[in-house]
C-alpha cells in the first residue's frame, strides 16, 4: 500500500524555467510534509517542508504548495539551475507518541538542461 506517490519517475526542464514536482498521498493522518533532495552516493538532504495547517511555504527559489482536499502537494523551483539536478523525494509524517516516522514517495529524477 503506497501511501505517498510520486507518479513521475523523471522530469527534464530547461535551465531558468520552472520545475514542478508533484506528490499525492492517501493517509489523512499525515500532518507534516517534506521534500528531500538526493545526489548519488549521498544521503537525502532536507529542502523544504509544510505543515498541514498551511497551504504554501516559500524559501528562496523553492515553494511547496499543499492541497489537503485533493491530498496533493507540489514543489516549485524557479528559476531552475543545473545544480538542481538530483532525485527529489516527497515525504509525509504522522506523529505517533514523539518523533516522526517518515513515509516516502518513490522519487522523481529532475534533470536541468543548460
Amino acid at each position, binding site marked *: 500500500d503506497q501511501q505517498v506517490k510520486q507518479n513521475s519517475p523523471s522530469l527534464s526542464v530547461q535551465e531558468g524555467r520552472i520545475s514542478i514536482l508533484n506528490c499525492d498521498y492517501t493517509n489523512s493522518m499525515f500532518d*507534516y510534509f517534506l521534500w528531500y533532495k538526493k545526489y548519488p552516493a549521498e544521503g537525502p538532504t532536507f529542502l523544504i517542508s509544510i505543515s498541514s495547517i498551511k497551504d504554501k511555504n516559500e524559501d528562496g527559489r523553492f515553494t511547496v504548495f499543499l492541497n489537503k482536499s485533493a491530498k496533493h502537494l507540489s514543489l516549485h523551483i524557479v528559476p531552475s539551475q543545473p545544480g538542481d539536478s538530483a532525485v527529489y523525494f516527497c515525504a509525509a509524517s504522522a*506523529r505517533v507518541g514523539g518523533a516522526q516516522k517518515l513515509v*516516502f514517495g518513490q522519487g522523481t529524477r529532475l534533470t536541468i538542461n543548460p
Partner: protein
Amino acid sequence: DAGVTQSPTHLIKTRGQQVTLRCSPKSGHDTVSWYQQALGQGPQFIFQYYEEEERQRGNFPDRFSGHQFPNYSSELNVNALLLGDSALYLCASSLVGVVDTEAFFGQGTRLTVV
C-alpha cells in the same frame, strides 16, 4: 557541527551471514531512525530508537533488529541475510518532542548480499 555519520559506507556479505551497521546522530539529537532504500525506490522505515528502546517499527521481519546506546548512537543488525536485503541503509536523526522539524540523514551504507 558533525552531521549524521554512518559506517561502513560499503559492505559485501554472503547470503545467510549477519551484518551490523552503525550510526552516530547529529549533535544534540536523541532519536535515531533507520530506513532501507532499494534501487529505484524511496526510503522505507525500518524502526526508530529513543531512550535506548525501539519506539516504532515498520513492516520488516524480526531478522532486522537494532540497538541504541547511552550516547544516542545506534546499530542496525540484520541476520540470515537474503539477496533481497541488498539496498542502501540510511540512518536519520531527530529530536523527540520537537514537532514539525526535519530529520537529518547520513550518507548511507550500501549493502550488497551475494
